């Protein structure tokens, strides 16, 4: 069984990727876009899982990394002619990494609650800066820009269609998953997990815990920034709303719902959350509620029932939807 | 015993995570009796006291206090039933003054102002040093004074039994004899005492019966009169 496990894993992964690749060809436009969005938010949540699930640090700062990735890409796309995909990727990743380094420096020396609050405040610092520095960031209105072509200079250039963009996102997200998985299973990842289990002991054994934490935050920030770049590519705009700490909070929700410490769990969590959002938005209209006598509930945001579900899960199902598979996935 | 014992502990088991600390402890304390619990470090003496006080919930067994089964009752109810617990590291409230520390036990329903005054007076007679320091925060007291305060505080509950966990640990010899006097005074007041100690002479001198514990079980049980310092049994289980 032990020897077969990697085989089972790879087969499973290929099946899932294949399904996700075929999906845009058969789904109607709206659901196709939603699927791509689920993948992007899933990547963001996965990056956060590195911190929460593997290092044991709850961060509310991911919106900053995500947003800076988005704005970095936006800046690159607005400043290159024709808009260059790789430049956007590089700019977004560098911006996110810089922010992650900054936040990591201040926050990692703090434990638990202080860390969470400080990362939250840093998100807000960046939010305020972006919101008010209108000349650079477009302020409240954000930035809009052209989607770049998938191009390798000198070889070919092809504009993205909705489907090819989806495949691009799928490729990036799957690749990121594999990289993150490799990281968590490496000796580095093992140290992170031992920090999560018992930080004091890990420090006592001689590991420079702060340094590991900083690297963990930076890696996490890098992939979060990558998600931001993808989002910019998908939607062709960047807005300060994405830097607001609530986005970080929602990311953490995906983690918890999906199952921390599983890497794929958060993607499932993102999917679950976004599908619930769609579902409730459609259901909570007079059309469906009035006949059941619940007309008074019309217009209520999806966040109320979803939030209640989240709270219930935190209390009763803390391991999340896929949490039971954590052991298995971490082999 | 011809009458019901005040405290009956029957075969209690307790775990701390995966460690099996108490492997079936049974003991009894009669009304007004002074009983000693001897044993090395880590054998489960403190855990036994905590189980009786309701601060730790045994996984198996029974504890009956004053006719009432108590396992599962919240700790604050146990205190109200008449169990006064004095923990191993004293644990007085460091930022409360001496008087306020005493008041945590004094301020109970059904205790009128006159009664409270009387109790305070009595305890200040036992422990004049506390009277001097009554407005000082508990954390500024010396180790010995904190021990006095911890005992005095528990006495404010007017308990039927006092659970003392290593009260002489880290104290000067002069204070050790003070502790001995306090135990005798409690006995005169018909308050039962369950004394956990590593100080063998004190325990043999102050107590009527002794239980010796090793690895979470009672290994020996005898009246104090039958045991002497230096006995083989004492040496076997305590190494002294």
């Amino acid at each position, binding site marked *: 069984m032990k020897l077969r496990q990697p085989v089972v894993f790879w087969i499973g992964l290929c099946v899932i990727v294949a399904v996700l690749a075929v999906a845009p060809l058969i789904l109607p436009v709206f659901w196709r876009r939603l699927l791509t969005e689920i993948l992007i938010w899933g990547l963001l949540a996965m990056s956060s899982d590195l911190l929460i699930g593997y290092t044991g640090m*709850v961060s509310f700062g991911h919106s900053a990394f995500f947003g800076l990735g988005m704005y970095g890409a936006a800046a690159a796309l607005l400043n290159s002619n024709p808009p260059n995909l790789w430049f956007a990727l590089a700019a977004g990743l560098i911006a996110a990494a810089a922010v992650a380094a900054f936040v990591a420096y*201040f926050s990692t*020396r*703090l434990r*638990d*609650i*202080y860390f*969470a*609050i*400080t990362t*939250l*405040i840093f998100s*807000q*610092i960046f939010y*305020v*800066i972006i*919101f*008010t520095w209108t000349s650079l960031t477009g302020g409240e209105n954000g930035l809009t820009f052209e989607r770049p072509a998938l191009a390798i200079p000198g070889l070919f250039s092809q504009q993205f269609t909705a489907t090819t963009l989806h495949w691009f996102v799928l490729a990036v997200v799957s690749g990121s998953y594999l990289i993150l998985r490799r990281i968590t299973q490496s000796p580095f990842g093992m140290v992170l997990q031992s920090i999560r289990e018992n930080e004091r002991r890990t420090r006592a054994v001689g590991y420079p815990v702060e340094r590991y934490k900083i690297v963990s935050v930076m890696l996490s920030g890098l992939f979060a920034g990558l998600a931001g770049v993808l989002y910019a590519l998908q939607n062709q705009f960047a807005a300060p709303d994405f830097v607001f700490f*609530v986005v970080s*909070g929602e990311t*953490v*929700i995906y983690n918890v719902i999906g199952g921390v410490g599983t890497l794929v769990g958060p993607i499932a969590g993102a999917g679950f959350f976004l599908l619930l959002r769609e579902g409730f938005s459609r259901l909570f209209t007079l059309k469906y509620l009035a006949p059941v006598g619940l007309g008074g509930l019309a*217009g*209520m*945001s999806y*966040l*109320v029932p979803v*939030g*209640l579900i*989240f*709270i219930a899960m*935190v*209390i009763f199902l*803390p391991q999340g939807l896929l949490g039971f598979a954590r052991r298995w996935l971490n082999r | 015993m011809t009458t019901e014992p005040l405290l009956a502990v029957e075969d209690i088991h307790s775990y701390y995570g995966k460690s099996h600390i108490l492997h079936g402890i049974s003991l009894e304390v009669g009304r007004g009796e002074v009983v000693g619990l001897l044993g090395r470090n880590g054998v489960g003496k403190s855990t036994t006291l905590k189980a009786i*006080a*309701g*601060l730790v919930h045994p996984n198996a067994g029974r504890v009956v206090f004053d006719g009432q089964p108590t396992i599962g009752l*919240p*700790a*604050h109810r*146990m*205190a*109200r039933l008449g169990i006064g*617990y004095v*923990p191993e590291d004293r*644990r*007085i*409230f*460091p*930022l*409360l003054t001496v008087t*306020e520390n005493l*008041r*945590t*036990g004094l*301020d*109970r329903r059904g205790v009128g102002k006159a009664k409270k005054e009387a109790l305070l007076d009595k305890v200040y007679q036992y422990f004049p040093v506390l009277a001097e320091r009554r407005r000082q925060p508990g954390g500024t007291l010396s180790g010995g004074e904190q021990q006095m305060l911890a005992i005095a*505080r*528990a006495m404010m*509950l007017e308990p039927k039994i006092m659970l003392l966990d290593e009260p002489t640990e880290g104290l000067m010899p002069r204070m050790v004899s003070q502790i001995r006097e306090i135990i005798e005074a409690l006995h005169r007041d018909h308050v039962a005492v369950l004394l956990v100690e590593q100080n063998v002479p004190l325990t043999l001198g102050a107590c009527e019966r002794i239980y010796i514990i090793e690895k979470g079980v009672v290994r020996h049980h005898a009246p104090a009169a039958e045991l002497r310092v230096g006995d083989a049994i004492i040496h076997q289980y305590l190494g002294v």
Partner: protein
Amino acid sequence: MGVPFAHFVIQTLNGIVSGMILALVASGLTLIFGIMDVVNFAHGEFLMLGAYVGVITFAATGSFWLALIAASLVIAAFGAVVYLTTLRPLLGRDPLTTILATFGISLVLQNYALWQFGPVARKIEEPFTGQFTLFYLDYPWYRLIIAGLAAAIIGGLWLFLKFGTYGIWIRATTQDRVMAQAMGIPVPWVLTGVFAIGSAMAAASGVLFAPLVGVDHAMGVDWILRAFIVVVVGGMGNLGGSILAAIFISLLDAYASLWVSPSQSIIVSFVVLILTLLFRPTGLFAPTPK
């Protein structure tokens, strides 16, 4: 710099007024954290709901006092219910779990309020009339009265904690929960009670803020951020420190807004936070750790 001295004085008054109310918010947060190690993310939403109850009561009765009392009582009860259903089951667990749970509560309450009360902000206009002249500018009395009320409530809390049986129960439980139980203090009730008191303080702050700022579903978010900064700068669990920190930060904020827009003036608080974390992480106003 060209700022008339009179403006400076006005801003000082404004800073003190906001600071006192912020101190009230932060005290509630610190009280709860000190006794049960829970950082209540939803504290801002208790403030917001309290503000709404206050606005509605004021509209119905015209009495600011009734608004204050009603909001405090209603939200105290509501807080107790939230605690008993959602937080108590989580008490033994990982502290991060309570952060998540209270964050969830905060989301639910914000969106509930948005749905129930709509997006348009409400206000309590000038609950007490009259102004006095400071230099050549008029300053309204009600602002000072509000500051006085906040100070009175905080003072009342201090007295309650210092004297009185329940105050001793709360302080003992904060210092050593296990021994408090061993002394017969009904700790589960004390925890519920403190959560209710903290929530009531947040609600009262909401009502006190209502004449100064707009009441809408998102107002809690602004104030919770400031409250967090205050609590960290003042020293986690340190009541006196958070009061000083609240006034300090509000004054800085008020002065900053002489030069920059309000949404930017919060950067000053952020900078103070960063400096505190760098140089005195236990808190600027906390006693130096031994």
